[in-house]
């Protein structure tokens, strides 16, 4: 039966889109259905109840809590990461605040939108405030989906917003907002592991072969993206696919924006996961910390790497 994939219509979902459009999934005899969500947090519960089988998502508090109570969800591999030059997660600031807000410290008391409570971007905002000796409590966080944030910046409903690509590029195009800070500007060590690929354990238990096949196809998509990200020969084709599946329809912008980094071997950065869990625990969004190793099921990526070979970064 088909594999339902939860996606958000963002650049980070590119391997799904590539896999579907270029027939990689079909080649592995896996039928894939895409289902869009508001935020990755929303996808965790359906994933654990096997309503969907695969989702990309930030390591949110919900995810750690789900592991704590042993929900049948596993991290299968890495997805996107913020690295210098490849930092797609962006703090957009309203253009009219440009003069009064020059450093992160000036954000004190401002209204800042993130896409979900205690998700990766919430964490990122928190770490940004930590970096100037303040904390997340010094700003006013509201929750809003990315598609809504552009309008909210236009209408001054918010002062700043944490946005991922392609929204960041799209919104800075509108002249009401500018890219104020990027994740990699602040979070270098460890680099921010923004999102990972999650598998439903009920699915992998029931149908490990399909999961393996899925992983192979997915990894081929990752490699295409990696090539495009580095400006390789696939770039035009990948941009075509992204234009089709995301809300960023202006191809020129893809050359201006920063692409998020995708490891060609989908290797996880555990220190980043640990740090995120620590931050959530600080605000009691995570009550009991879990062993990050136990969250990971690398059988499928290992199989895919075995089949497709490793790429040297």
């Amino acid at each position, binding site marked *: 039966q088909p594999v339902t994939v939860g996606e958000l219509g963002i650049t980070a979902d590119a391997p799904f889109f590539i896999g579907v459009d270029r027939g990689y999934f079909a080649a592995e005899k896996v039928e894939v259905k895409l289902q869009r969500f508001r935020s990755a947090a929303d996808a965790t519960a359906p994933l654990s109840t096997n309503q969907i089988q695969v989702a990309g998502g930030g390591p949110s508090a919900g995810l750690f809590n789900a592991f704590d109570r042993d929900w049948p969800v596993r991290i299968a591999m890495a997805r996107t990461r913020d690295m210098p030059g490849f930092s797609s997660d962006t703090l957009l600031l309203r253009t009219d605040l440009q003069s009064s807000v020059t450093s992160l410290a000036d954000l004190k008391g401002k209204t800042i939108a993130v896409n979900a409570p205690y998700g990766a971007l919430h964490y990122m905002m928190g770490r940004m405030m930590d970096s100037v000796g303040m904390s997340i409590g010094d700003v006013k966080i509201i929750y809003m989906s990315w598609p809504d944030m552009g309008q*909210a910046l236009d209408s*001054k409903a918010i002062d700043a917003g944490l946005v991922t690509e392609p929204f960041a590029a799209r919104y800075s195009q509108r002249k009401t907002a500018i890219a104020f800070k990027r994740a990699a500007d602040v979070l270098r060590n460890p680099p921010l592991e923004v999102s990972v690929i999650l598998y439903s354990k009920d699915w992998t238990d029931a149908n490990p072969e399909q999961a393996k096949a899925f992983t192979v196809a997915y990894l081929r998509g990752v490699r295409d993206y990696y090539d495009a990200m580095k400006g390789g020969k696939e770039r035009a084709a990948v941009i075509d696919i992204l234009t089709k599946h995301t809300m960023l329809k202006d191809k020129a912008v893809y050359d201006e924006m920063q692409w998020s980094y995708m490891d060609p071997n989908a290797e996880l950065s555990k220190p980043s996961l640990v740090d995120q869990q620590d931050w959530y625990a600080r605000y009691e969004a995570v009550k009991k910390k879990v062993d990050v190793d136990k969250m990971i099921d690398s059988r499928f990526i290992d199989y895919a790497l075995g089949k497709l070979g490793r790429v040297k970064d």
Partner: protein
Amino acid sequence: MKLAKSTQERLLTIASPVGILLIWQILSNAGVIDARYVPSPVQIFRSGWDLLLSGELLTHTAVSLYRLVIGFALGAIPGILIGMLMGLNRFVRAILDPLIAAICPVPKIAILPLLMLMFGIGDGSKIAVVAVAVFFLVAINTTVGVMGIDRIYLDVAKNYNTPWLKLFRRVILPGALPTIFAGLRISLGVAFIVLVGAEFVASRAGIGYLIWTSWQTLVIENMFVGIIVITILGLVASFILREIERFLIPWRRHDH
């Protein structure tokens, strides 16, 4: 020129809403009402028209309506059946009464997350939360309706040796119908509130979603359009319910 009191009243009744709209528009034009926060009636109408033409409004309306109709039916029909059983059988009542008494005071919107866990994040959970809200109100009213049937009617029925099925069809059902409809009417209002609340937090479509994103993005006109559309839906729904009631309860005096 003196007008009869009733004519004066009728004039006031028409003048008052028209007057409000006019004053609203004039104040907006004059800039007294900040059009960025509260758009003028004309602006709202224009936005509504645009949303209609783009098809977006119809989609949202259809989604909300679908959830509402299915949810209402899935709540009302079992509600009536269980209510009947509870009204007719004291043991069923003894078993279910405490459960209903325990679950009924839960503000139904509060169990939306639980329902999302059970029915997924799609239409299922929204339909379920409407159905649950409707179910309890209808079940309780049906029980009250059945138990409140004047003893004398049951005596008459017994006196004329009414067989069980006829007793139900000819006495219990019509006798409880007015109270059942009272329950349906209340639960219709609650269904709308619960649905809008659910669409605020956990939906990608529907009038509630339209209102909430329009608010979040401060497209205030669209927010007003959403509020007006959901209100019209509510009015139409209660009109239909009233017509059904009139048709099914022809023996009632319908004074107003």
